[in-house]
Every structure is written in C-alpha cells, then in structure tokens.
C-alpha cells in the first residue's frame, strides 16, 4: 500500500496473469464459510424468521391456526404478561447501570497500587465462571427470611430483615442484585483492560499540573476508557434483557408474577402448551433487545469516531 507510485505499473503489467490464476485457485475460498453458514441458517436464522410467522398463530402440538396479532394484543393486555415486559426493562437497566458503576470503581481500585491485587482480581472474577443455577440456589438459601445469613447479619444490627424473595416489591431487585454480584467481575475485567491501556504519561502529566484524583478521573480515566464502557454497556444489556436462568432458579417469576421477565414468560407459556403465545413473547423480546441495542451501538460507535 505504501509505495504505490512505484508499484502501480508493475501490478498493472501482471494483472491479467494474476487474476486468472486467482480464479482457478484462490487461497481464500468462500466455501470455508459454508459449514458455519449452514449451521447458522438451520439452527438460528430459520427459527428466527419462522418465529415471525408462528407468533401470529395459535399453535399447539397438533395444529397451527393463523390468528393475526391476537397473541400480541393478549401479551400487552393481560397484566401479568405486560408486567414481564416492564420487569425485563427494569432488570436490564438496573443490572447494567450497577455493573458499570461498580465495575469501574473496582477496576480503579484493582489497578491502583494496593496489596493483594492478584487475590482480589481472582475473587471478584471467579463467580462469572460458576453455574448460574448453582449461584441462584445458594443465594436463595442465604436470602431465606427466617434462617438465611443475610437477615441474621441484619438482626445483629437490630435491622428487620425483609423477605427478599417473598416480598412482591423486592423479589425482582433481589434477583437483580445477585446478577450484579455474579457479573460485576467481567465488567471489572473489561474496565481494567481499558484503564491499563491508557498511557501512564497522561496521569503523570496531570499530577505535575496539580490535578487531584477526582479531576484525573473526570478528565482522563473516564473519557479514555470509553471503548471499555461501551463494551460493558453492550454486554451487560444483552445479558440482562435476555436473562432467564437466575430468575428461574431463585423465584420462578414469583411471588405471583411480580418477578417474571419476558424470557420466563416464554418458558411458562411453552410449558403450558401455548406455543404461539410463547413465540410472540420471543418476538417481543427480539424487538425490545434490537430497539435498545441498535441505537446504543450506533451512538457508542459514533462517539468513538469523534474522539
């Protein structure tokens, strides 16, 4: 690419010869795509496209009847189904916001000179790798209102422990807090990689100029770890909006349907044999995720170009 003026005539002279030999035997053949495309088409693209049709049907084990938008009307009219839609948004945004704030704080702590950094990194990150169901069942016991450790500790300080998973107002947020506990490690890791990549000279120069820690954070760390912030926002929102296993392990959407999310409604309707309604839930989830993710991804990419 660099010495183009000299190279051009040479390339042009050889051009006919090259293109014929390429056509015969490209070293990078497109058929390398074929196995992956085949899997993707059959097990991902086809079901996704089919879902737009099946969402418009009453579908059971035996037959499929086209019913137009009835499933969607039902989804947004029945309070328990509509609630799951709202809960999905709450869950997605609460977990993402907390992971960004806590992840950034932990990353700054773990990149600063303190003792025991290796241990701390390992401990904060390990829950990411553990089975979600295992974590969910463990915290379900720890959050038990009568014998659980959390309420025991609160009682030492004379605080009344709530029924974390049995109080309708709290259940969703309790599950979200466990999600944050389990997932903050990956946010921390990504922020750490972002912070470490900032040249040390910037910090030194700022310190020489007499900037305090808050000033350094505001004008160096925060703006320069924007790619990391973008990655964390995207990853945690995708995960949070689609979340199912943790909620299912801890509350199964209860008490009542107060901690149901769209993904758990999809499973419940599937179990009940309402395949059409279940698939409509899938399409709703698809629209929610896409409508939130596409503008956010665009915005993050554009900002990066401006820098």
């Amino acid at each position, binding site marked *: 690419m660099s010495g183009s003026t000299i190279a051009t005539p040479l390339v042009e002279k050889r051009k006919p010869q090259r293109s014929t030999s390429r056509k015969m035997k490209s070293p990078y053949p497109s058929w390398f795509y074929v196995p992956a495309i085949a899997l993707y088409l059959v097990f991902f693209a086809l079901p996704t496209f089919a879902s737009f049709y099946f969402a418009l049907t009453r579908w059971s084990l035996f037959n499929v009847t086209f019913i137009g938008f009835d499933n969607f009307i039902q989804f947004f009219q029945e309070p328990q189904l509509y609630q799951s839609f709202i809960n999905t948004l709450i869950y997605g945004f609460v977990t993402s916001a907390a992971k960004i704030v806590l992840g950034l704080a932990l990353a700054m702590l773990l990149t600063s000179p303190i003792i025991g950094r290796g241990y701390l990194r390992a401990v904060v990150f390990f829950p990411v790798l553990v*089975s979600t169901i295992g974590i969910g069942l463990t915290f379900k016991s720890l959050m038990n209102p009568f014998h659980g450790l959390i309420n025991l500790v609160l009682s030492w300080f004379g605080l009344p422990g709530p029924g974390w998973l049995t109080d309708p107002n709290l259940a969703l947020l309790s599950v979200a807090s466990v999600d944050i506990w389990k997932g903050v490690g990956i946010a921390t890791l990504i922020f750490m990689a972002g912070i470490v990549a900032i040249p040390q000279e910037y910090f030194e120069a700022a310190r020489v100029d007499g900037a305090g820690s808050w000033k350094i954070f505001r004008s160096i760390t925060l703006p320069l770890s924007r790619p*990391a912030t973008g990655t964390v926002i995207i990853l945690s929102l995708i995960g949070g909006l689609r979340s199912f296993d943790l909620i299912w392990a801890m509350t199964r959407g209860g008490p009542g349907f107060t901690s149901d999310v769209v993904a758990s409604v999809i499973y419940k309707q599937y179990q009940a044999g309402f395949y059409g309604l279940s698939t409509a839930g899938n399409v709703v989830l698809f629209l929610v995720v896409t409508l939130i*993710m596409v503008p956010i991804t665009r915005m993050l990419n554009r900002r990066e170009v401006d820098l």
Partner: protein
Amino acid sequence: MRTRKWVVGSVAIVVSAIVFLIPFAFIILQAAKTPAEASDLAFTLPTKWVIWQNFVEVLQTNNSQILRAFVNSTILTVVSVIIMVVFSAMVGYILQRRRGRMNPVINFFVLAGLIVPPAVVPTIWVLQGLGLFKTMPGMILVEATFGLSFSILLFRAFVATIPKELDEAALIDGAGPLRLFFTVVLPLLRPVVVTVIVVQAVAVFNDFTGPLYFLPGDENSTVQLTLYNFQSLTLSQFNLLFMDILLITIPPLVLYIFFNKQIVGGLTSGAIKG
C-alpha cells in the same frame, strides 16, 4: 503512599472475603452437613462432618444420574466446542484475509447472532423436523451454533496479527487452501484457539436454558439440569443439593486455575479497540 497501599488493600481484602467468599463457604458447609442440619439453611459449622458420605450418596441418587449427567455434559461440551473452533476459525480467517462484497453482510449476521435472542419454540420445531429434538446430536449442533458469533469475532481479531507473507510462502511451496489453513494458519492461531476453547467450554458446561428446552428427559440430562431436578424432587435434602453445586463448581475452578490468562484475554479483547 506506603500506608495507604496497606490500608486500602487490607480493607478490600476483608470486604471481598465477606462479599465473595462467604457464599462459597456456605456451599461447602452445607455439603458437609446431615440432612436435618442442612435443611435449617443456617450459616453454621456442621456438628458432624459427613462430607464424604454426602459425596457418595449424591453420586448414587436416582440411579447415579449425576454420573451420567457428567458424561453427557462432557460429550456435549467437547464436541460442540470442537465444531465451534473449526467452523468459526475458518470464517474468521477468510473474513479477515479476503476483502470482498460479502464481508459487510457476514459481519452483520455475526453481530445479529450476538444480539438476537434465539427463538426457542421455532428451534424445537426445526429440530423436530430433522428428527434431532431430545437427542444429543441436536443439542450439540444448537450449542455450536449459539457460540459461533463470539468465536468468529475472537478469531477475526487474531488472524489480523498473523503476517500474510506466511500464507504466500506456503502457497509458493504448493500448499492448497485446506493444507494452508490446517497446517500453517491453525497452528499459529493456537493462543486464540485455547481462549475460545476455555471460554466456550465454560459457557456450554454452565448452560441451563439450552438443555432445558432442547434436551429434556432423564437419560440425557446435563449437570445443570440435575441441579434443578434436585431442587424440585428432594426438598428435604439440601445437603445433597449443595454437594451437587460443589461438584459442578469444580470443573470451572480447575479451568480457571490453569487458563486464567486465556480466559481474561478472551473476555477483554473488545475493551481496547471497542
């Protein structure tokens, strides 16, 4: 500065121990208790340590369903990760090397694969049509498909660091595209292959939703499903439930101890370039 280093570090170590280690300590304590004591769900030392008996008993429960589940999970993880690695390395390699009209289209579908939630019931419908529903091969192919996008992104980024001159040298030596890829390029991709294997193996091993929908039935159950069955079947046997949790936490722990660097590298690859 010195003292600050010690004070902040010590506080962080104490807080992290309370927040992150106590839940794991709770799992171990529960797994060592008698059924009566474990059902209290209290955070106490067992009066009688029966961790070995619980271990033996959990393996025998339900006609040693857990052993079968470990075999199933191992097969599922190993085969689907092999498929993922080979197929997505091929795509990542060509996608990086060839600048064609197809690239934007393929990049779009890779991103879509990351963002779009899989349509579950229609996937079951497809699997049924192929006669693969409730079968291990079907589950393997579905897991492999769901992991493609992330693996392709990792491979594409890494192929960019391998000089193209190596390809040309191999071509001059008379290698065809297949030999070029499998004997020259793939060995050079080793670091990222290890990353993809470890990250995806943990993901498949821990996946609950996939087997719940696509692989129901006792004889096929994976380790995550046994956990879930334990909870519904044997409400009074919390000791065995937690022993089961302990057992399925060990494989990721071992992977983490040995492949710490690869896991961290793979999961943070997007942090710097975005």
